[in-house]
């Protein structure tokens, strides 16, 4: 796929569809492409962090910096693959894997107590002290059978988070 083309060929669309396991319809991929080109102001072929932050709703999200690390500089195909975790038809393990990756900021496959504390700090800002976060986290972890020194793997996350109430769905508007 060309980096700065403003039209998608049928081949490009099918290629992207294949890579996201056919979670998106062809119309949705065209819509996403229009959005991608809208955010990528100078047609570089990827969206820079600054361009993501120019969307006010994104910039004011407490986890925006963590997500930026994952989406900064993605080309269109990887952009769609990233968003496919939010597709209503995506599997629960795929969604939980994305959540895991947000916590596992050093990509070593393990989420430690410290990693979880950092995410909680992002979410609570200045409204919870480190001590309050630490105490609360130790309490719930022990009740779930983990200790402060445990490292959680992806399987642990799946075990903990997999329940029908987990909804992580974003609809792609198709005009």
């Amino acid at each position, binding site marked *: 796929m060309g980096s700065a083309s403003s039209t998608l060929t049928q081949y490009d669309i099918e290629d992207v569809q294949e890579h996201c396991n056919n979670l998106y319809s062809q119309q949705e991929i065209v819509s996403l492409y229009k959005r991608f080109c809208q955010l990528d102001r100078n047609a570089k072929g990827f969206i820079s962090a600054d361009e993501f932050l120019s969307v006010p709703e994104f910039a*004011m999200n*407490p986890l925006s910096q963590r997500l930026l690390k994952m989406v900064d500089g993605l080309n269109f195909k990887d952009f769609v693959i990233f*968003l496919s975790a939010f597709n209503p038809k995506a599997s629960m393990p795929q969604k939980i894997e994305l959540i895991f990756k947000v916590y596992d900021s050093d990509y070593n496959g393990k989420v430690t107590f410290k990693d979880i504390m950092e995410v909680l700090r992002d979410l609570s*800002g200045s409204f*919870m002290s480190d001590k309050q976060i630490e105490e609360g986290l130790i309490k719930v972890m022990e*009740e779930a059978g983990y200790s402060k020194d445990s490292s959680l793997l992806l399987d642990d996350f799946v075990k903990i*988070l997999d329940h029908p109430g987990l909804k992580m769905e974003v609809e792609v508007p198709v005009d």
Partner: protein
Amino acid sequence: MSKLTTSRSELDLDRPNIEDYLPPDSIQQPHTKLRLRDLLDISPTLTEAAGAIVDDSFTRCFKSNPPEPWNWNIYLFPLWCLGVVVRYGILFPGRVLILTIGWIIFLSCYIPVHVLLKGHDKLRKRLERALVELICSFFVASWTGVVKYHGPRPCARPKQVFVANHTSMIDFIVLEQMTAFAVIMQKHPGWVGLLQSTILESVGCIWFNRSEAKDREIVARKLREHVEGTDNNPLLIFPEGTCVNNNYTVMFKKGAFELGATVCPIAIKYNKIFVDAFWNSRKQSFTTHLLQLMTSWAVVCDVWYLEPQNMKPGETAIEFAERVRSIISIRAGLKMVPWDGYLKYSRPSPKHRESKQQSFAESVLRRLEEK
């Protein structure tokens, strides 16, 4: 959620509670005991972020709609080519001619009036006003502007202010050809700036600079002085502070609404069939924008002069601004969005993130107490 209060010296731009406009917080706040699953589940926050990446109401306000390409076939293509020839070869030179004649007439009257009548201020002012209205009419003619004015014409009275939605700088010209308003504008570079500092000075214009913090207080004072003066031209303000694509309105700045004056709303709606009059200042210079208008078929728009509004007892300036914005939006068929137009140039204030963080923290702490 308490209303955001700001002091005059803050750079933060005042706005009503955004939470009133956005969809209800998807972060559930149940009162059950907190488990590890609840603490680790960041899916609502991630969903909001991904939703914003996929589509957001702020970027929609500044999307210029590219013209739909025609369905080419053997009959339509030559017709379109003929259209291009007519527009660029006949209409455009004709319009340039009209505009040039207009400028010649204008300058040959304005300069003598400005110089020779220095002592007779009242007469000079009246003549200069009429001349400015004249040159604006020439501009409008140069785009084959078809403007339908509805409602009673504005009159010059003290203690009143006119506000309108903003799509392009031509809004000002379209309104000015009917009534010589004084306007508050961002100082522009180039030939526009030259026009601003010479001709527009004579109708009484106020300049501001978006990037200067102290500027707001100075401008607020100038606004007040202008509105209270008896001899000044009626003041026109575009409270959105930036050009929006004529499908949406962004939040109105409260400056125009706390002058203690009657606010007369004006709604402007351009007919997109003929040309998209939205000036996307990020994509084109004003000169390019004008040239684009001059090579289109016509600029067709409706202007509604709406009923003057006064601040209701117990209403804050922000509520007043939002009430007037909804009057204008309903009249012109525009959707209202809860964003500050200046977010085009700067990042959102940390206050929004902080209110989300606060509600998260409170919920967690409360649920930790539950047995």
